[in-house]
């Protein structure tokens, strides 16, 4: 691909005047302010990309809509799943929010391998950004993207007649839960990326873990009807804690919100630590 021949740059006065800022290195931010600044930078990039191309937003809305529309409505009629007296589609909606947020986050490992191949990751790692800040930034960027997805699912659920809360404080809690869980799942995916190092392998593993995570949680049915072994799996599955908290906040069902929040904070922190420790392997 060729371009029009650029005019040879001249050392004219206006050019010389126009680079004064490029002669002065910016002053480094103080220690504790660095991490939030990097997180904001990476979240901003994610929002800018979504603004330019909303295709992903629309295509990703299809699957949750189908789950709620077909699965939710059908199982509402069958009444096979004990939901504690609420319509099944209502019971399902928080599970589908959690599921669609997880599906977004689980792609971050593939994205980071793509960024490695494209040189974007290396360039970022040569900036004054500690590896843990790169990972935290990406984790929260996944959270922001998942949050937008959650809004879409909440709108779809509302259109289907699900009575979700509009209490702003509870919605703020929902946002926090979605961001934390997405941070964990994106870090899980980036950790696997740092171990397997190739997109093909990661896609296989991603496929292999997302469905068990989804079906081994309380997203579709309560833990009480699970067989013993699945109940044990569910206890170690952060998705279950996310769904429990979302149900409690959005529908007002009985939930262990403090425990859920605690588990998700610890899971996100562990995920960030694990992914940061293997990020160097991707730079090699």
């Amino acid at each position: 691909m060729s371009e029009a021949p650029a005019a040879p740059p001249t050392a004219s006065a206006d050019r010389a005047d126009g680079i004064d800022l490029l002669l002065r290195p910016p002053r480094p931010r103080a220690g504790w302010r660095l991490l939030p600044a990097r997180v904001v930078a990476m979240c901003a990039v994610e929002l800018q990309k979504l603004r330019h191309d909303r295709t992903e937003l629309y295509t990703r809305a299809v699957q949750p809509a189908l789950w709620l529309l077909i699965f939710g409505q059908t199982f509402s009629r069958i009444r096979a799943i004990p939901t504690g007296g609420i319509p099944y589609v209502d019971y399902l909606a928080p599970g589908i929010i959690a599921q669609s947020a997880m599906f977004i986050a689980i792609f971050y490992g593939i994205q980071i391998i793509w960024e490695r191949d494209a040189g974007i990751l290396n360039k970022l790692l040569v900036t004054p950004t500690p590896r843990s800040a790169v990972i935290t930034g990406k984790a929260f960027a996944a959270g922001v993207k998942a949050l937008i997805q959650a809004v879409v699912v909440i709108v779809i659920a509302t259109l289907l007649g699900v009575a979700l809360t509009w209490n702003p404080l509870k919605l703020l809690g929902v946002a926090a839960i979605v961001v934390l869980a997405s941070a964990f799942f994106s870090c899980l995916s980036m950790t696997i990326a740092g171990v397997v190092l190739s997109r093909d392998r990661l896609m296989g593993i991603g496929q292999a873990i997302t469905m068990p995570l989804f079906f081994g949680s309380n997203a579709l049915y309560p833990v009480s009807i699970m067989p013993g072994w699945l109940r044990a799996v569910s206890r170690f599955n952060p998705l279950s804690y996310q769904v429990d908290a979302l149900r409690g906040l959005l529908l007002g069902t009985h939930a262990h919100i403090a425990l859920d929040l605690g588990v998700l904070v610890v899971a996100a922190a562990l995920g960030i630590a694990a992914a940061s420790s293997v990020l160097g392997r991707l730079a090699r």
Partner: protein
Amino acid sequence: MTNDRQRQEKADTAPVDAVACTGLAYTFGETRAVHGLDLSVAEGEVFGLLGPNGAGKTTAIRCITTLLPVPAGMVGVFGHDTAGDRMAVRRLLGYVPQQLSADAGLTGRENVALFARVFDVPRRERGARVGQALAAVDLTDAADRLAGTYSGGMVRRLELAQALVSAPRLLILDEPTIGLDPIARTGVWEHINAVRAATGMTVLVTTHYMDEADQYCDRVGLMHRGRIRALGTPAELRRGLAERRGTDTLPSLEDVFRDVAGSGLDDTSGDFRDVRSTRRTAHRVG
């Protein structure tokens, strides 16, 4: 005491090399990519690291940019050791990797703004600084278009703007003109030169285009099998070979390279991965 002070004063006034590598070695499994590299790049010069694919240029660059961990004492950037003082080194660097690394899903301005943010440019100054970086590479008019619509030469200039926005003292470019047509190649080099003239920054560039190195670099190091085989200004190296051969006609830099590298060049020029990466970049540039 007085001696200490004199030594300290001497250390303060002595020019510090922009890059100093001492016995730099790096091994991938069984492959010794860089094998005892000694290199010093003086402040303000344009230094070219030359060699075929697989010579170890990119590995050396990745050690200098802190991407690959090396033991203390092997690599220094303006006196900061890359092993112990990574953050200080990174604040001094502007880096353009071999691949086309601008984000196609963002506009030119957003691409540069990201790097202003991660180098802690305060918000009140960010817009103006990003504008100046884009103007320095003649991308002001295209700044609000998606980078995905840029030509290969424009992407390279955008990456240059990304590297310049933090006012680096050392600009590192890994194969900046790979895959570009001659006009775009000249354009990229002219912008590198203009920026360097205006800012006085040091430039470390790798290339396997000998003609470019001859034309644009103050000094070059010819690298082969992980080591520097010849070092000097392009004119010095060419004259040296002419003297060794006892001829009046000045050989090209490529002749010098063939002379120092010996035979078997073609068999060692890069493994499958190198070639794939190079071709992919060339393909993306178009």
